[in-house]
């Protein structure tokens, strides 16, 4: 019995099959549902309905804003952390890094629930009573908390790779601390920023567990919308999902997420 000879290309077949069944096929199904009506006939009705409905457009805008704020806040917190961890000579700094990543090992719903209870407790104090109805604040807080590790890790790995001699060169040439940051650190950590932004921005548009539990379900983001529509109108649900897909695709493309750049790849998790 002679075994068929495998070429190296044949090793790709399982991945190809996987992609076909779990990525391409579902997308085609979404596309199909988005452009058909309940009876299965081709129709643009959902498309028109989506873009003529101010509520749906507003929800996209709100989700974008929530995601944007989350990303900016996460970046502002994560950047100094990553910088300090990468540049300082603290012993066992991986322990500190680990502490930041540790929450990711605990069930996500459990963590969000814990924050919810924490806020409930805080809101009982007179001075913090405003917390009870600060639904947008709590939602963004939860999102930042949840996605922070995804911002810190790529930043940390990129910054670790910046050669120390570059800083020395900058100092030798008379660059102040500020100039060094602006001309050396920031540009060289850009791939990490991009990678972190992509990983935080996109999920925070759809993570409705946070907005439901911390925003008391009074904050509606696009992910929740899709979920609600899939309860009884798959076609509209698919259309919203499709629009979101396009928004995500465009923003990834524009921020250069598809570039198979060496540094970007290294910075990804």
């Amino acid at each position, binding site marked *: 019995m002679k*075994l068929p000879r495998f070429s190296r290309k044949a090793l790709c077949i399982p991945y190809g099959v996987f992609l076909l069944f779990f990525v391409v096929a579902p997308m085609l199904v979404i596309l199909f549902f988005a452009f058909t009506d309940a009876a299965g006939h081709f129709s643009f009705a959902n498309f028109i309905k989506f873009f003529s409905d101010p*509520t*749906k457009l*507003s929800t996209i805008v709100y989700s974008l804003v929530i995601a944007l704020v989350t990303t900016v806040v996460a970046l502002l917190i994560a950047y100094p952390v990553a910088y300090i961890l990468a540049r300082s000579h603290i012993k066992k700094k991986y322990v500190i890094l680990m502490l930041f990543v540790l929450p990711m090992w605990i069930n996500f719903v459990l963590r969000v629930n814990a924050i919810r209870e924490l806020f409930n407790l805080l809101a009982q104090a007179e001075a913090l009573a405003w917390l009870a109805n600060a639904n947008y604040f709590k939602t963004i807080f939860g999102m930042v908390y949840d996605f922070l590790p995804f911002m810190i890790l790529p930043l940390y790995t990129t910054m670790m790779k910046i050669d120390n001699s570059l800083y020395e060169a900058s100092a030798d040439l008379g660059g102040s601390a500020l100039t060094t940051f602006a001309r050396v650190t920031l540009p060289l950590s850009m791939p990490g920023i991009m990678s972190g932004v992509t990983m935080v921005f996109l999920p925070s548009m759809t993570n409705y567990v946070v907005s439901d539990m911390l925003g*008391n379900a009074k904050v509606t983001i696009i992910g929740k919308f899709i979920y*609600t529509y899939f309860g009884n109108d798959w076609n509209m649900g698919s259309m919203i999902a499709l629009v979101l897909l396009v928004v995500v695709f465009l923003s990834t493309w524009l921020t250069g997420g598809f570039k198979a750049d060496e540094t970007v790849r290294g910075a990804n998790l």
Partner: protein
Amino acid sequence: MNAKKFASVFLASSLLLPSFGMLAGCSGEEVTVLKVYNWEEYIDEGGKDSYVYDMLLDEGEDPDEDDAPPIIEDFETWYKDTYGEEVKVSYSTFGTNEDMYNELKLGNVYDLLCPSDYMIMKLANEVREDGTPYLEKYDESFFDPEREVNGEKINYYIRNVSPYIKKQFETNAGLETPEGEPRWSEYAAGYMWGTTGFVYNPEVRDKQGNPIDLGSLLEEKDWRIFIDSNVKGLITAKDNVRDTYFAALGVTYEEGENGLSALHEAFLSGELSQEEYTKEITRIFNRTDSETIDAVKPELMKIKENIHSFETDTGKADMVNGTIWLNYAWSGDAVYALNEAELGETDRNGNTVPGSELYLSYYVPEAGSNLWFDGWVMTKHVAEDPSGKTKQAAQAFVNFMSRPDNAMRNSYYIGYTSVISGENDEMLDYIDWLYGGEENEEDFYDLSYFFGREAGTVGVYADEEQRTSRQLYAQFPPQEVISRCAVMDYYRKDASERINELWSQVKAETLDTWAIVVICLVVVAIALFTVFVKFGGKIDLFRPKPKKGYHKV
């Protein structure tokens, strides 16, 4: 082991495997598989919280968890003893009626489902894309109380179901269903039922420490408690459109000349008969026309403004820890919350912390509320088994769950109310065991309607709290509560679309049109700018592509 050997072993074993399977298949009798699809936590699962376990404790024994098996295991044993055949129940659960419907629509196969009233109607009226119906009717023999198998009168459902529930299922609970649409009873056998209302904490204090009588406030405001500023941020609504739309209808149509309250008055004074009254309120609570939606929308907005949260399962916990004062809830969940709160907090040794017990109450709005039923329906799949054994097993399952002792077990475990009353009023003993008190004339709690008897003849003796606001009142509502409740129909096509739109408008924020236009323009401008920066001057469609650097030799 070289590759060749490995391959031959692999091939040989893969050839052998199916025959192992065949051997196993041949050795025993054929096993019928019954696929049951039920709500989460909606059946006795045995163990420490079960009726059997607590009964053993009551008898002074020291049971362990294995002494209280899940009811499904008991069904399998019973089926084998009675029918002499093996059945294997493959049990799975769903979270909402809509989830269940989607699963069915996707083509997932189940034999026995437990949807709510409106979903039963939807399934009974709809057909699949290939034109086949979703549901299978019950056999004629299922309704024969005398039918015997192996010397046992096995049609427990028809013998033990409450006459009141039976009538509701035969009349679609007073809904004006269009001509030609089936009765629930053709497709469904009842399982659990109840009302919706408010769980509230009767002993709350405001910021200054003055006690607030929520009970009186509820009686005064009724549905309008949802928009009352006294409970701003302290009340919850449900995060699903049906229940919250129902509540908003209550808020909108409570007052006014032909409003819900006025109708209730007219009913109490005898101006309206029960049938007329039910018809009127059912009509109001099922209004879905555009005019109604326009009227309800501002009220829904006010509700959203006033409530603490839209919730599906956080309400019970928030109630117990004092975050909220009122929780709009289904009666079974209410019973559960009341039971839990009453136990109080436990310390590390499992003892109750003194003073942590909380005695919550339940209230069904005077102006009328929702009456709901969950029932077992069989899918067409049971009829695909030519031997008829799947259908037989499905009907046997319903019958087994309807045997009074099993109905008690399920009810005890989940807190909801079984549709079973028992042919010899067995359920009455159970109610008495749970909530009964001393036999004082004035403490009589009349449940005759549920047992199908003349008013004033059947009931239990219970203290005033149980009769008016506690578990007994929530789990086994008195006739005066039932008489003012209405069921919800399913939303027909157009109505469904209108209500979805309404719900998304309520849940999401809507910006002004000009704001959207401005934002869109800004986004497009940023996108164009980025594209320009990225590809500035580099876009040239006519330039030939540069040759690749490497050539195959």
